């Protein structure tokens, strides 16, 4: 395991880490010199070469996304920062904004310069009241000190940044749902294409990036793509703030390079599984297929290892479960969540999530047979690939992986099926 200096969390723990004073005293905004010395296209190339992938869940290469923005439409270009952090099990953007809001602003300046945007909105989930105060405080400080506003640090580059408060809807974390919400509408995702990079906010080209994606950019601009790409693995470059929740003795978050084995993460950082042996891990937020203890043995915290194990890196926040966990109760929790959060536009999602939830209730009530389990799997298959956004798939994947990998838990709740009824009845 490489040891590298922290990039995202280096100010965490410093007194008043969120102030401009501490930020500047610890190298903050120092990437801007390199930034403004480059042409925007060169900045995009740099970020491409760094291998930085989006940290919001989909893992899309950041520099490549930026390169999709058409520069010849004559329309303004927007940056929308995704600080909606709603994926169950995920909680680290929260602390990025609390502890180092200026780092995010520095990343926003880099991104906006690269894509030629002069207006950024930070879409923060409504519950993050303290985080919004922090961000607004940092924006005020930055504007007064000439890091935002007109002619930033004499570069000739102008940028305004505003916070937009959400109001409680998971679906507004989906990038086009977020744009609808920013426009003052219900956060119902849009059909793609057109992709937001071409037709986004107010019909203009728009880039949507996660808080940690943007907070990763200043280090790349200051130290170069090659230095960043040298950290982690070939496919998963750099560092990330990894989180642990659920049944570990020490829950929390830690910044480290990609590549740590999952079991070392749980045993060394998490100080071991709490309350019994390991049963399962959801590796990157509740939408990712669940893994058995056995599957975790050779799993590493990288995009490629997660893919090889037929799950997803997601947000990099793992939920750990011990041997006493009843998978039926956990899946019921998820079917409730997704049916509650479906925006209802697409029939397979609206009906599928609701049906899965009803069938889970039936199972828990002892009213289901293995036929219902088959039905749940069939419904899951029909929820994928047919909808406007992937919320529908985000329930289908857990349903399938839970039932297939922990079938014994589910069968315990099943009454004997019709075919197993004693012969004298028929």
């Amino acid at each position: 395991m490489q040891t590298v200096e922290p990039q995202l969390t280096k100010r965490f723990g410093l007194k008043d880490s969120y102030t401009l004073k501490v930020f500047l005293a610890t190298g903050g905004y120092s990437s801007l010199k390199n930034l403004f010395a480059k042409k925007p296209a060169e900045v995009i190339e740099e970020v491409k070469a760094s291998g930085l992938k989006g940290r919001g869940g989909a893992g899309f290469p950041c520099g490549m996304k930026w390169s999709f923005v058409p520069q010849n439409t004559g329309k303004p270009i927007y940056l929308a920062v995704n600080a909606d952090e709603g994926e169950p099990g995920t909680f680290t953007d929260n602390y990025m904004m609390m502890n180092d809001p200026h780092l995010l602003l520095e990343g926003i300046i880099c991104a906006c310069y690269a894509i030629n945007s002069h207006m950024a909105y930070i879409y923060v989930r409504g519950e993050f009241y303290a985080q919004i105060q922090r961000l607004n405080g940092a924006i005020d400080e930055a504007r007064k000190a000439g890091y935002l506003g007109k002619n930033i640090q004499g570069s000739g580059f102008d940028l305004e940044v505003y916070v937009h408060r959400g109001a409680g809807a998971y679906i507004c974390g989906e990038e086009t749902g977020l744009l609808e919400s920013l426009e003052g509408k219900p956060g119902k995702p849009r059909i793609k294409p057109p992709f937001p990079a071409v037709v986004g906010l107010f019909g203009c080209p728009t880039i949507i990036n996660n808080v940690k994606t943007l907070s990763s950019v200043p280090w790349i601009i200051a130290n170069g793509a090659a230095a960043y790409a040298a950290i982690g693995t070939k496919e998963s470059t750099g560092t990330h703030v990894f989180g642990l929740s659920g049944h570990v003795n020490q829950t929390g978050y830690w910044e480290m390079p990609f590549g740590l084995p999952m079991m070392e993460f749980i045993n060394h950082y998490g100080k071991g599984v709490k309350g019994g042996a390991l049963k399962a891990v959801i590796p990157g937020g509740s939408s990712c297929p669940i893994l058995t203890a056995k599957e975790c043995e050779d799993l590493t915290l990288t995009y490629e290892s997660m893919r090889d194990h037929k799950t997803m890196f997601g947000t990099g926040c793992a939920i750990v479960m011990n041997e006493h966990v009843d998978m039926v109760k956990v899946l019921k929790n998820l079917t409730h969540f997704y049916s509650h959060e479906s925006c209802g536009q697409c029939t397979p999602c609206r009906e599928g999530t609701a049906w899965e939830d009803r069938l889970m209730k039936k199972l828990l009530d002892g009213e289901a047979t293995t036929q219902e389990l088959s039905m749940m799997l069939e419904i899951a298959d029909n929820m994928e690939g047919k909808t406007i956004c992937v919320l529908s798939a985000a329930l289908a994947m857990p349903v399938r992986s839970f039932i297939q990998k922990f079938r014994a838990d589910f069968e315990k709740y099943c009454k004997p099926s019709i075919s197993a009824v004693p012969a004298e009845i028929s």
Partner: protein
Amino acid sequence: MQFKPEVINEFEGIASRYPVRRAALLPALWLAQREFGFISVDAMKAVADMVGCSPAQVLETASFYTMYHKEKPGKYHLQVCQTIACLLNGSEEIKKTIEQKLGLKPGQVTADGKFSYQPVECLAACHNGPCMRVNDEYHENLTPEGVGKLIDDLKKK
């Protein structure tokens, strides 16, 4: 129901951040909730006037989002996370404690108007679960005893 002139001023400052006025609808609803306590039908009309959109558009948007109260909440609005990570660490016990101690079901308000209670979905503090929000403040690593004491303290306030 009308906004005070200084609130309208505040709103105009916010609206100027967007190229399209409708985009300031969520901020306008937040202002309405701050000023009037909840988003009544009259409040929606006032918001529509201020933003310059139809009351139906305001209703459509306000009703989509769970954080806009359609009825008056208690002085202390308890929002307990009931999602997966908090569930694993005991959110059911926290919900039960609140329900028994205050005699509330989800969505209800105590007769004295002091407490309202709503289970909510993941609050993004999962490593410190179970957790809840009381109005805009987070309370983490909850235990049934701790929640009981918190409620007793709030009762005295």
